[in-house]
Every structure is written in C-alpha cells, then in structure tokens.
C-alpha cells in the first residue's frame, strides 16, 4: 500500500503526455486572448447571480435598510406560497407556448416562401428584418396604439365591432401582447429555419418525387425530420426569450395590469418599484432556475435527436 503511493509520487504516471512548448505557448496565448471576455462575463453574470442568491436569503427592503437580517429560505417560502407567483408563472407559460407555437408555423411558412424564391428574395428579406431590428418598445407602442379604444385603426376597419375592446380585458390584452411578440420575433425564427432548410439535400426531394411522394408528404417525411436539430435550436432560443418577456407587457399593459403580469414584470415590480431586494431576489433566482430547467429539457431533446440522426445515417 505504502510502496504503491510512494512510487506514484516519485514517478509521474506515464499516461500523462507532456505538452510541447509550442502547445503550451498556444494555450497561453489563447487564454490571454479569451481572458477579458471570460472575466467580463463572469463578473457581470456570475457574481451578480451569486449576490442575488445571497440577497434572497435576507430580509432586505431598501425602505427599511436597517432591518436587514438573515432569514434563510423564508423569502422563497413567501414567493412559492403566494397565488400571484403561480398565476404569473401560468400567464408567462401561456404567452410563451402560444407565441412560440405561432412563430414556428409562421416562421416555417416564411422560410419556405424564401427558400423557394422565384424572384424578389431581396425585398422579402429586407422586409422581415425590419421587425427584427425595430426597438421592442417602439413595436409595442405600435401594437398598443393600433388597438387603442380612441385612436386605433383596428376599430376603423370594417367587420370589427366597436364593442370589442381587447385592451380592457385580460384575454384581449394577452392577445395583443402575443401578437406584438409574434410580429417582432417571427423573422428571427424564419431566418434560423431558412438556414436549416438549406441543409436539406435537394436530391432527397427529387428521389421522393420520382417515387410519387406528394409535396405535403415530402415536407412531413423528409424536410421536417432532417430539420429537427435546426427547429429545436430555434425553439430553444425563442422559448427562453419568450419566457423572459418584459418590454411588450410593460408598454402594452403597464405594470402587468389586468392579470397580464409575467414573472419578469413581477420581479421588476418587487425589486424596483417596491425596492424589496430580498423578496425580489428570491423571484430572480426562481426565474433563473426556470430558465435552466427549460434549457436542460431542450438540450436533452437536441442530444437525442442528433444521436438518432447519427444512428440512422
């Protein structure tokens, strides 16, 4: 026993390859080049999230800063036992699922239109980049004013009854919020799907055509399965993004009124309006955990799909 440990200590294990000087220099250069970016990312996301966790264990209200004390997990208990948190989670999930589902369908249609472009690809591409580039707050104002009871052009349209006032009800407000979200982010989805479409080999379509497959059959049997990784990546990015929804709600239904409050709006209201940093940080950490859960679910799905593909081909 003792002999074994001493021999291990004196002779380095032969399996460990010694790095050449060149490789060492390369590694040093690489880390020097990456260091500023890595340090910035750690300092601005890593440290504050740890600090948020620390704050979430305190009773800490900026209106009464002297009452700061360690309270363990009681802020979490307060959040998780409140009906507001759970109804906000539900609202956020509804907005996320509905808008991402619509975006996937619309984005796929736009991507297919662009992929099979006969002419005018440039104008279409330029047009769909406008919603992508526009400031979210501006887009939210455009949608809110379109449905504004006194000035909205929607109510000047034929077939739209004046009695339908979406911004006065929860369901109507969610409809406008989702419409604004879908409008703004579908282009991003479409571009990611378009890049995925480009990876589907034309020969497969030709072969299926010869075998007598219809357009729809080819789409569902060839295009969709081959695009699965691209679709999952697009869905992952958009789901996480939609789950953090803040700007649109803030503008369209200020403060998350009429039950349109998302978890991010709740966090904002508690942290910034009520300056209750303890309770607010508990909400922040819970949102962070939700985001990690969503990401893990998608990455697992992505892993199995690429593994399946590798197995098939």
């Amino acid at each position: 026993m003792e002999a074994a440990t001493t021999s291990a200590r004196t002779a380095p294990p032969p399996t460990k390859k010694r790095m050449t000087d060149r490789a060492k220099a390369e590694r040093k250069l690489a880390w020097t080049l990456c260091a500023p970016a890595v340090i910035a990312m750690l300092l601005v996301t890593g440290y504050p999230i740890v600090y948020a966790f620390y704050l979430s264990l305190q009773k800490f209200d900026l209106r009464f800063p002297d009452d700061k004390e360690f309270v363990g997990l009681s802020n979490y208990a307060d959040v998780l036992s409140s009906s507001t948190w759970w109804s906000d989670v539900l609202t956020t999930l509804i907005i996320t699922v509905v808008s991402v589902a619509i975006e996937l369908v619309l984005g796929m249609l736009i991507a297919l239109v662009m992929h099979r472009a006969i002419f005018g690809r440039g104008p279409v591409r330029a047009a769909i980049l406008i919603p992508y580039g526009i400031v979210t707050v501006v887009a939210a104002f455009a949608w809110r004013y379109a449905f504004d009871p006194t000035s909205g052009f929607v109510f000047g349209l034929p077939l739209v009854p004046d009695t339908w006032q979406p911004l006065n009800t929860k369901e109507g407000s969610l409809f406008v919020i989702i419409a604004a979200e879908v409008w703004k982010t579908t282009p991003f989805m479409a571009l990611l799907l378009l890049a995925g479409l480009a990876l589907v080999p034309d020969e497969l379509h030709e072969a299926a055509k010869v075998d007598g497959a219809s357009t729809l059959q080819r789409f569902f049997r060839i295009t969709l399965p081959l695009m699965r990784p691209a679709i999952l990546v697009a869905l992952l990015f958009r789901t996480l993004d939609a789950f953090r929804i803040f700007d649109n709600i803030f503008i369209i239904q200020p403060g998350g009124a009429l039950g349109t409050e998302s978890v991010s709006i709740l966090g904002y209201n508690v942290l910034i309006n009520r300056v209750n940093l303890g309770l607010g940080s508990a909400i922040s950490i819970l949102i962070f955990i939700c985001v990690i859960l969503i990401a893990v679910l998608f990455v697992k799905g992505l892993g199995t799909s690429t593994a399946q593909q590798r197995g098939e081909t």
Partner: protein
Amino acid sequence: MQHTARERVLWSIGILVVLLYALIPVAWITSLSFKTPDEVADRKFFSGFSFDNYDVVFSDDTFIAALINSIGIAGIATLISIVLAAMAAYATSRLDFTGKALILSGALAVAMFPPISIVGSLFDMWRAIGIYDTWIGLIIPYMTFTLPLAIYTLSAFFREIPWELEQAAQVDGATPFQAFRKVIVPLAAPGVFTAAILVFIFAWNDFIFANTLTSTDNARTVPAALAFFTGASQFEQPIGAISAASVVVTIPIIIMVLIFQRRIVAGLTAGAVKG
C-alpha cells in the same frame, strides 16, 4: 428554370403578404406621428401630414438627451464588445487549447441568461459603487450580454478566413504586421462589421437594463425615455409625440437593415446554427 403563370401569381401574393405583415405596424406608427391631436382619434391611416410632433420631440430636452445617451452608450458598448469578442473568437477559431469548449458553452449560457435575475443585484451594486444612472453603468451590462452573440458570429466568420495567405504574404517579403494589415484585416473586416451591427441593434433595443439602472436624463436611453414620456398632462400619453420619437429611432435601424441585409442574415444564422 421555367415557372408557370400560376407559380408567379402565388409567389407574388406570398411576397405581398410578407411585406404587409412586416410593414403595417411600422406604417401605423409613422401615420400617427404625422397626425395633429384632432386627427389622432380618426382611426385612419395617413389622415394628416403635419410635422408638429417632430417639432415637439426635437425641442424636448429629455428626448435629445436620450438620443445622445442611446448613441453613445450603444456605440461604446459595441466597440468594447467587438474588441473583446474578436480576441476570444480568434483564439477559439484558430488555436487549439484545453478549455475551449468550456469558454464556448459559458458564452452560450450567458446568451440564455435572464437579465431580470441580476437587475436587482446590479441595481444594489451600482448604487453602492456610484455608477447607478451613468453611461458606464449601462455599458458594462450591454457589453457583457452582447459578447456571446459577437463571439459566435465572429468565430463563424474567422473559420472561413484562409489564414495561409498570411504566411504566403510573409514569404513574399511582407513583415508580420504588413501581412496582418494588408491581408487579414480586409478579409476579417466584413465579419467584424456584421457582428458590430448585430451588437449595436441589441444594445440600442435594450429596455430592461435601461429601465432599472437609470433614473434621469443622465443615462436614460431612448426605449426607457419613451416608456416614461409624459406630455402636458401627466395622465394622458402624448400619442403623436411618442410616435414621432419612435419613428426617429426606427429610421437608423431600417437604413442599416436595408443596406446590410445580406450580412445581417449571414451573421444571425452563422452565430446560431454553426455555433
């Protein structure tokens, strides 16, 4: 390729639908910006053509300050982010080293990070160290949150550069610096430029940090200023003025998008798919 008349008609309808989809909300807010207060309630597209709202906006100190803040903060954040990201992207695309995968997945994690989870901490920290409501207080989060986008976009572009040309130029008698400046810089410039546009759009668009980490004209950017814009009456939002201000901040984005559309598409998809 030959196309039937039916295909051409269908395709034209497709283009028209996409154009209407993209442009109606923009046209609507533009229409509102040209209306006088009396015309605002007429619910019509392009009923008036008055520049009054633009006069209001451009004589409003808050809006001018916000515009300067937005340009300055987004510009500086873009510059720093691109420099840091270019260094990291060069390392991850050209050099072989342990920890590369860790850096790339770390960047991916930051891309997915929910800003709301740290605004409380930053609010408290920035107040403690005295950079709450300052330019630097916003530049720091913008620069950081755009790093993943910039690193992924730039490494996708850097992987495409034929780096052998650098050695070839040196063999032909160029100094290392000449080889870098005359050969590599022109090849890398389009990618760097594309990444810079994407980063700038991101910083220009941000609302949550601008809203939580500022409180006055000192550092408030346009999106936050718009949200807190009040007219003569505190309880009624000045629809015309907000619309005019919205159009002003949208014009530069539309111009950029029209000029650089190919690069933006290439950058967006390179970063997301190949990464």
